[in-house]
């Protein structure tokens, strides 16, 4: 079964670009859902089974690091791969994301190929390319 993907970013522009890029990858991805911050993401995840989360770091209300921590602390969600997509290049936040268990990190600006390469590494065993 193709996993549903949750894109979390406070920028509607980036959510739209990621939707397009995800479709372009040709990977077997189910429905793509969107959230504007970590809080909204958790609300969606309570009612929808998600197989992959792509999240920004700097967001209002609940940022990507807090979202990642909440997911990894939950037995129901801890195995869902989380990919951080952010302008942050500093060791502090990237290091924190890696320590908390982020599956991958993509720096903005990104190309479709970069997203595809990262997702292939995460989803290849489960998804046909």
């Amino acid at each position: 079964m193709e996993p549903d993907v949750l894109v979390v970013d406070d920028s509607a522009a980036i959510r739209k670009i990621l939707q397009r890029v995800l479709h372009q990858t040709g990977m077997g991805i189910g429905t793509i859902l969107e959230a504007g911050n970590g809080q909204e993401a958790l609300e969606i995840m309570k009612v929808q089974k998600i197989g992959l989360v792509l999240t920004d770091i700097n967001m209002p209300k609940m940022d990507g690091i807090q979202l990642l921590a909440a997911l990894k602390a939950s037995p129901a969600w801890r195995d869902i791969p989380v990919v951080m997509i952010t302008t942050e290049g500093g060791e502090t936040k990237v290091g924190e994301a890696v320590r908390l268990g982020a599956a991958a990190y993509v720096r903005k600006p990104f190309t479709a190929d970069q997203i595809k390469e990262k997702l292939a590494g995460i989803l290849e065993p489960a998804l046909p390319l």
Partner: protein
Amino acid sequence: MNIEQLIVTGIRTATAEVFSTMLGVELSVGELTIEGGEPEPNDGVVSLIGLAGPWMGTGSVSCCPELACRICSHMLMTEAAAVDEEVLDAVAELTNMIIGGVKNRLEPVLGPLCLSIPTVVFGRNFRTKSAGMAEWIVLRFPWEGSQFAVKMCLTKAEKIHPMLHAPSHACTLEA
């Protein structure tokens, strides 16, 4: 390389990278000016992001409404005829990526910096001013008959807000 050169190089590199990657547009190197004194009136879109840490300041991008629409069209691959929420959001995200890219290039020298969430202003005949800042480093990039400006002002934190470094009891009131 001094701080000013570092910022100029950072703006040139980050802006070129963002335009090339997200818009498929190759920009020229851009014209450098140092601007101070009274801020000039703006017409169009200005997007601002605050920087905080051992150095503090503001980064901004500005352009005319037509260029903002063109940026949105290239970025989202949709037609944008007028400045609406989608256009403002695209410009805000572009600012976030450019100033974030500059920040990432400055951090190895200046230490960890934090970015605020962008604020975008669209209007006519308005002025923007960053309190306490004397000079802006400005790079203007020509693109299809219009100009896209990236500006940054940055100074050591203690020069702006000495109270941030004062002892914690400094502001307590005696009964």
